[in-house]
Every structure is written in structure tokens, then in C-alpha cells.
């Protein structure tokens, strides 16, 4: 078990021991959702001792956390904290200098069916502007050997059916986020990794995203979602992982981090070393 980081400045509540969410099991109540028939023993995501430098800059240092099935885990941290680097290392896109980042107990490249195991939305802009939303998904479906008809089903599911035959170059950021979510869901994965999926969504879109993530978790899927919109995170996630300066500063179920009298925002700002919210 990792030691508690030195940067923690929150009053000691019930955070004295770092608790991996998967050790807690599903919470009772409406958020617990339907547990999978046979709960997997391994955590959906396990990051342990992960370190990565880009030249002289330390992006991530000795980062560890786990993410379990059936839960939405918020991945929080200031700009430049190392969130995107961590997610990319997890997905085999960048090579860590040390440590491991496992999905369903394996490195990404070692997964028998990577696209069917984990779906990812890392950058909503990652679409050829000359392709229609439908073409974009159909290319991915062909490569991933997913029935091409599923592309149309998902476009309807994310609310893009009417824009499916428009070029993605004309899509708003919100529409691109929806297209990215459809791409992430294409392989019907049990694990989802989403980097700032709420960016660019209007209030209806944010509500839609929250309901989507909750329903996916209720199906027993594991969702790791990074976000800056803390009020939204507080309404969506079960567990929270906070990193700052490339290091882990907290991991706990949401209700243990933010209780009565202290919002997630208060706790987050204290954890990341800026309790007054001053611009850094």
C-alpha cells in the first residue's frame, strides 16, 4: 500500500489509509448499480509506481492508484498535473520510464482484444475534418472488426444521428466529444478511459453525459474520467483520484473526501496546494 503523500494539507478525516475503491465493493443505494455476474478479481485499472519524464520535465512520478468495475472514478488534477500522460501510458501510447500501468491485469499491448476491453476518448479533436462522423466510425469499425451497423447505432445513442453524414470539420466541440464517445463505445468495452469528456458540452449535454456514465457503470463497467468541472464530478463519480505535480495526492471514495461542510472543490484546492484558488 502506498504511503500517504507529504503534500496533503487536508485535516485528517478518515483518509489516514489510502483505500483502493475496488476493496470497498459497490456502495448501497441507487449508485451501486447492477454488479457484474462474476465480479473480476483484478482491478479494471492498476497504476503502480508509474514515472515518465519528457526531457528534463517530470510529467508523472511514482504514481499509483486503482480503478474498479461498476464504478465511475474521477481523475482530478490541475493543468499539467500529469493526467493525460498517465492515461496515455495506461493505453500504451507512451512508454513509461518506470512502474506499470495495467488494464484488466495486462499491459495494453498484451490485451487479447484491446479495443473490446477498453474504450478511450483522449482528444475530441482527433478526427479527420474531411470525413463524416459516420465515415470516421466506420473506418474504426472496419479496423476493429466491429459490425459496421454498430456505428449507426452509436451515432444515434450519442445524439449525432442527424449530423452523421456531415463532415466532422463542421462539428462543434460538443459534437466532437459525442463522436469521440461513440468511438470509445464502439468495441463495447468493459472499461472506459475518458479525458475531459465534458469539455464543450452544453448543460443538456453534461446531464446526458452524466446519465450515460452512470448507466454504463450500472452495467458493471469501469469508467476513469478526468475532468476540471468539479461540481459535475461531484454529481457523477463514486471514487476520486487526485494528482498534482505528477504525484498522487489522494485516492478515496467521494463521500470520504467530500463530506458535509466541505465540498469537493474545497478539498481539491487544498489537496493540490492552492486552497484560495489563486491563479498559479
Amino acid at each position: 500500500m502506498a504511503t500517504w503523500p507529504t503534500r496533503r494539507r487536508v485535516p485528517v478525516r478518515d483518509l489516514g489509509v489510502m483505500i483502493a475503491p475496488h476493496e470497498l465493493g459497490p456502495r448501497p443505494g441507487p449508485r451501486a448499480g447492477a454488479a457484474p455476474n462474476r465480479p473480476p478479481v483484478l482491478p479494471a485499472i492498476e497504476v503502480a509506481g508509474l514515472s515518465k519524464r519528457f526531457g528534463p520535465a517530470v510529467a508523472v512520478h511514482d504514481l499509483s492508484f486503482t480503478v474498479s468495475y461498476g464504478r465511475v472514478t474521477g481523475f482530478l488534477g490541475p493543468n499539467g498535473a500529469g493526467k493525460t500522460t498517465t492515461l496515455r501510458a495506461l493505453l500504451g501510447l507512451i512508454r513509461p520510464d518506470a512502474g506499470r500501468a495495467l488494464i484488466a491485469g495486462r499491459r495494453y499491448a498484451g490485451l487479447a482484444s484491446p479495443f473490446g476491453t477498453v474504450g478511450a476518448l483522449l482528444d475530441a479533436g482527433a478526427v479527420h475534418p474531411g470525413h463524416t462522423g459516420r465515415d470516421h466510425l466506420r473506418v474504426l469499425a472496419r479496423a476493429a472488426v466491429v459490425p459496421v451497423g454498430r456505428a449507426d447505432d452509436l451515432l444515434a445513442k450519442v445524439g449525432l444521428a442527424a449530423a452523421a453524414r456531415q463532415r466532422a470539420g463542421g462539428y462543434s466541440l460538443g459534437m466532437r466529444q459525442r463522436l469521440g464517445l461513440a468511438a470509445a463505445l464502439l468495441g463495447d468495452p468493459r472499461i472506459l478511459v475518458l479525458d475531459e469528456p465534458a469539455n464543450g458540452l452544453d448543460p443538456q449535454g453534461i446531464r446526458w453525459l452524466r446519465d450515460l456514465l452512470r448507466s454504463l457503470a450500472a452495467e458493471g463497467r469501469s469508467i476513469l474520467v478526468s475532468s476540471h468541472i468539479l461540481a459535475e464530478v461531484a454529481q457523477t463519480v463514486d471514487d476520486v483520484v487526485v494528482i498534482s505535480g505528477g504525484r498522487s495526492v489522494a485516492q478515496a471514495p467521494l463521500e470520504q473526501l467530500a463530506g458535509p461542510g466541505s465540498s469537493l472543490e474545497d478539498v481539491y484546492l487544498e489537496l493540490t496546494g492552492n486552497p484560495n484558488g489563486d491563479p498559479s
Partner: protein
Amino acid sequence: MTRLIRAEAVKLRNTRTYRLLALGALALIAAGVAATSLTTSYAGGMNPVRGTLALAGLAQTFALIAGALAVTAEFRHKTITQAVLITPRRTPLLAAKVAAFTAAGLAFGLLATGAAAAIALPVLASRHVASHIDGVHLAGIVAGGGVATALAAALGVGAGAVIRNQAGTVVTVLGLLYVAEPLLGFIPHAGTAVQTYGLGGLASGATGTTGFPASAHLLGQVPAALVFAAYALAFLVAGAALLRRRDIAA
């Protein structure tokens, strides 16, 4: 592997840039061949057909650019991320692009060179310019056009994988073909090697058309195609190695 080639084929079909490149190349070749065969006197011992069909070499330039775009567009639009997520082993990803674009290049090269011949021969005949070429050699030129264009597309894929930056790759390729090689060709002694073994000289050799300058000593069609293929392979091996090693960080 088939699934990846199919995905590349969908991209090739649905991307307007490739259609525009193909149409632009065909229009330029047709206009150039028509104008040349209508007006040139073909003095100085140049074979009229081989000299005129050298203009169909534009197909190789455009295929080179299309192949480069196949890779660099993935980086520019960041679609490389999803591609690598679906296929974490990155070499098959590049191999699928090579397969799709080599096949498309072959078809396009045959079409472009065949169309050039279909324009040049009747025009030359109407001007009573003796073509001095038989059917077998003409077929060799058209087939060579197909092979050279396919190899150019493969070389473009390799160059794109090495350089990654879209504008950088296109400028490098065009600069090499149309500035560096012609200039280096004028260097005494060493210049003749550039005329023979440069990309332009190899493409002319592989197609059996006249090189630049017209007096350039070229390899035969098969040896030229083999050396061209070796260049393409070298770029592809380097590109695959770099693609495997490099982080996809944004």
C-alpha cells in the same frame, strides 16, 4: 491484416484530398502530353514516345505525396491515437497503409501512363512523327508506370512515417525531386550518379522513359525498379522502427 487494409481502403475512398490529387495529376498529364506531342520537334535523337510519356512521371510525384499524406494526416489530425489503440502493434498499421496505397498506386500509374499513351500515340501519328516503338515496349512503359507509381506511394508512406509533419514531408519530397536532384545532377562526375540513382532517374528508368536531362544514363526498367523498391523499403523499415519507438503524446 485484412481488416486494416479494408479500413485504409475506406479512408482512401472517402478522403477528398486523394481524389483531388488523382484528378489533378491526370489533368496535368493529359494537358502536358497533348501539348508536347502536338508541338515538339523531337530533335536530338530523343524517342518521341519515351520523351512524351516521361510527363506521365507526374503520377509518381502525386503518388509519393498521397502516400506521405496517408501517414502524416494521421498525426496532423491525431487520428493516429485511435488507430494505435485498435492496433497496438504499430508495424501492421504501417504495413496496411503500404498495401492499400501500393495497390492504389499501381492502378493509378497504369491508368495515368495508359491515358498518356492513348493521347500521345494518335497525336504523333497524325503529325507523321515516327514513334520508333513496338507494342511490347509500349506495354513495358505502361507497366513500368504502374510499378513506379506503386513504389512511389510506398516510399511516400515510409517518408511520412519518418518525418511525420505533413508540410515538412511534402516540402522535403518536392524539394528533393524538383530542386535538389536536378541541381546535384549538374555537378561534374558525381552528378551523373544522381541522374541515374536519384528518385527522378530511377522513376524514369523504371518506366522506360527519358530522364532529366535527356542525355542522362538510366538503369534498365527492372534494375531501376529494384533500386527504387530498395529505397522505399529503407524508408519503410526506418518509419516502422520510429513509429514503434516514438511516444504518441498528443
